[in-house]
């Protein structure tokens, strides 16, 4: 406070009450409006490194070969996953985040410019492998799907509740490995539903094809 001395300086206090991520949220709303205008359904896949996100996209894209599908692939350093998906003959836009642990709405916006003209019906966004940070950054997606492999342990919903709270579906991958790991799919589904009662759960294996149909039906029901 300097008002009494006559030097003209004064202190201004302003009430802001604005979210730290309000810029990202605004950009996410713009993305959503853009996606809606083009009639593209957007699925944001989040999960730990190695949960099987890329493999799930591969299997899903192969099965949905009557639809126009595109992928935005987020990776901290490499373009390896994007190259892997390009080999399926689908349009892929790679986002190398430069070490950043999540995608944000701006990155998705820039990446989608390369895919817009292809008029995809479904856009999969593979987020950076991480179960924590992506939960805070809305991308303008229609829904978030958590991908959790049975080798990761049953405690993940409790440890990362934000991701499960914001998701519409949970895909439990690698169920062909269930005989070899301590993982009770029912127990995990119940735990996840305590956090998010509306969560849809899809246990599946892309290796054996088990459980893939309900997941594909769910995706088709979004169109």
């Amino acid at each position: 406070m300097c008002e009494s001395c006559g030097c003209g300086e004064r202190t201004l206090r302003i009430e802001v009450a604005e979210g730290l991520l309000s810029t990202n949220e605004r950009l996410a709303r713009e993305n959503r409006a853009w996606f809606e205008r083009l009639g593209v359904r957007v699925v944001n896949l989040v999960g730990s490194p190695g949960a099987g996100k890329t493999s799930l996209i591969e299997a899903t894209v192969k099965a949905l070969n009557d639809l126009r599908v595109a992928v935005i692939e987020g990776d901290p350093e490499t373009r390896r996953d994007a190259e892997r998906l390009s080999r399926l003959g689908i349009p892929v836009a790679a986002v190398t985040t430069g070490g950043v642990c999540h995608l944000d709405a701006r990155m998705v916006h820039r990446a989608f410019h390369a895919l817009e003209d292809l008029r995809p019906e479904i856009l999969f966004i593979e987020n950076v492998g991480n179960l924590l940070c992506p939960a805070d950054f809305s991308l303008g997606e229609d829904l978030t799907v958590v991908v959790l492999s049975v080798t990761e342990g049953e405690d993940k919903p409790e440890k990362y509740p934000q991701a499960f709270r914001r998701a519409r579906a949970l895909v439990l991958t690698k169920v062909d490995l269930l005989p070899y790991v301590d993982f009770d799919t029912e127990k995990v589904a119940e735990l996840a539903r305590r956090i998010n009662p509306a969560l849809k759960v899809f246990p599946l294996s892309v290796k054996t094809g088990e459980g893939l149909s309900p997941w594909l039906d769910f995706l088709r029901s979004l169109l």
Partner: protein
Amino acid sequence: MHEASLVSALAENLLELKRREGARRILKFKVEIGELSGVDPEAFRLAYEVLRDNLPDLREAEMELSLVPARFRCENCGASFPGDYLAPCPDCGDLEKVALAGEELLLREVEMEV
């Protein structure tokens, strides 16, 4: 890493406000972090201190950090209760609930010299 992204968003907001108000410097600001947000206040503070050392405009800005406790409302019976995302309603046992408080990541107030 997560906290680093959040403090850089915070810095953008602060610098934008400073510009808008034509302020000479930012003296103090208040941030509220909800306990359900998944953000660790200590990591957030550390990330802010690292950032501040690299941004002359924030060098004198003091951050007041407060943690907002979680509060839910039961969708079934309307009871209001504390707890976490796993907690059922203590009155009726239902799991459907909305978070009334605890999810915020908020810049509440800024004090500047103009």
